[in-house]
């Protein structure tokens, strides 16, 4: 029963499913990274050197309840001494020991929610905050989130195109295999037709084979994808910290199911077309 042709179909379907899974995972990863960057987008509010305690208290209260503060987080106040210490730590220097005036200002930082992370929203947020009493200036990484979002969209588009192309190629490949397989078995099929077998009976073995072959291809692809992910996670531990492998599991399950579905549909369409053509040729 196992001719090289069926073997090739299984392998190429597995390959396509693997690439599909890989691109899906890639898209997921890109999306995940973008989201995390956007969630972590800090707005830095520099307070005037002569601001009062009351102004600072009011600013913190205002930010806490404003819609452009990420819910469940609190704006953080960082005084200039602490800022200097942290700067020292980062630069591995000891500016505080020099006894100069601290050039830094007291700051308040807060996280914006994801829907405020676009440049135009951020500009509005910055203007609103800047108009508060005691605020000197407002900073954020202009356009960074935007750039990430645009790139993520671009990646998704390209990936989508690749996936579509792969699907078409797979479909054609399976279709050709079905036709080859059917014409290799045309005596069998002719015999069945002449003795009065229904189309359902004639196509049943092909559809069963389609299911098993799709399942096998899907499992092969899932195994390859899991292996790749595992190897990648060992090599780049950051990937593992981004998520816990559940998405990989979901993608593996999806490509297995998709393998069965694609193969079944392709076989079904192929067999029906072949049987109909035989009759249409006559009628």
């Amino acid at each position, binding site marked *: 029963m196992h001719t090289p042709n069926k073997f090739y179909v299984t392998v190429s379907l597995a390959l396509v499913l693997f690439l599909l899974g890989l691109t899906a995972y890639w898209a997921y990863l890109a999306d995940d990274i973008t989201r995390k960057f956007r969630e972590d987008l800090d707005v830095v509010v520099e307070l005037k050197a002569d601001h009062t305690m009351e102004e600072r208290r009011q600013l913190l209260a205002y930010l806490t309840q404003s819609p452009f503060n990420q819910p469940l987080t609190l704006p953080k106040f960082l005084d200039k001494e602490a800022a200097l210490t942290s700067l020292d730590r980062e630069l591995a220097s000891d500016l505080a020991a020099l006894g100069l005036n601290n050039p830094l200002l007291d700051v308040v930082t807060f996280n914006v929610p994801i829907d405020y992370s676009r440049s135009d929203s951020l500009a509005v947020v910055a203007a609103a905050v800047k108009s508060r009493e005691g605020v000197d200036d407002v900073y954020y990484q202009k356009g960074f989130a935007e750039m990430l979002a645009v790139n993520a969209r671009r990646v998704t588009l390209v990936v989508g195109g690749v996936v579509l192309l792969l699907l078409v190629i797979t479909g054609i490949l399976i279709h050709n295999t079905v036709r080859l397989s059917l014409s290799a078995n045309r005596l069998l099929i002719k*015999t069945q037709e*002449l*003795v*009065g*077998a*229904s189309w359902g*009976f*004639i196509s049943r073995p092909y559809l069963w084979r389609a299911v098993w072959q799709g399942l096998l291809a899907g499992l092969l692809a899932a195994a390859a994808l899991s292996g790749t992910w595992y190897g990648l996670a060992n090599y780049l531990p950051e990937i593992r910290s981004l998520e816990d492998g559940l998405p990989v599991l979901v993608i593996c399950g999806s490509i297995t199911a998709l393998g069965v579905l694609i193969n079944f549909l392709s076989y079904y369409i192929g067999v029906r077309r072949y049987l109909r053509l035989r*009759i249409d040729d*006559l009628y």
Partner: protein
Amino acid sequence: MLEPIVRLRNVTVHRGDRPVLRDVNLDVAAGEFVYLVGRTGSGKSSLLKTLYADLPLREGSGVVAGHDLRKIKRRNLPALRQRLGIVFQEVNLLTDRSVAENLDFVLRATGWRRREERGRRINEVLHAVNLPAARDVMPYALSGGEQQRIAFARALLNKPALVIADEVTGNLDHETSLETLQLMRELARKNNAAILFATHDRRLLEHYQARTLRCKDGVITSLENPLP
């Protein structure tokens, strides 16, 4: 009088788009044996194909085993074919499986679900064609005549109302041809199956006389005295 198994009225038989036989009027009664003679290319095979709806009936009217050939739909083809037993010159046994598996394949394709019943029916038809020992033999291990008898056994599986035999003796020597013909006639009589026996071998007609139709020059004529 019984309803005939085959009734054709003013039928034009086409091969592709070309008409090969015109004004065909044909009745075959239940259990009747009819020879169909004519040269290769005279339209015999096309006529037979029209009868089992492998070629469409475009002109005239035709009823075979209760199925109207003008109105038959794709989904009704199996029902028609199950009333017929079709045997060819090329034996068309499946070479990748034994004789019993060949027969079992047909039974399963035509809805015989119970394994014991299929086994019993296979034994019956193999006995009927005097080849009970061929059960587990591969087709290529049989002689041409034996293969043709197995093909005939296969045609009998579903107790057909009409056996269509298209040049079944074409590849056989004269003696084997006669044996095959004799066997088919006997079994058809036992099963009350009509046989339409197409052949270009006129010597067969000498031994077993029967109603004979001839395809020639695009028409079918009934030969009162088929032997020259």
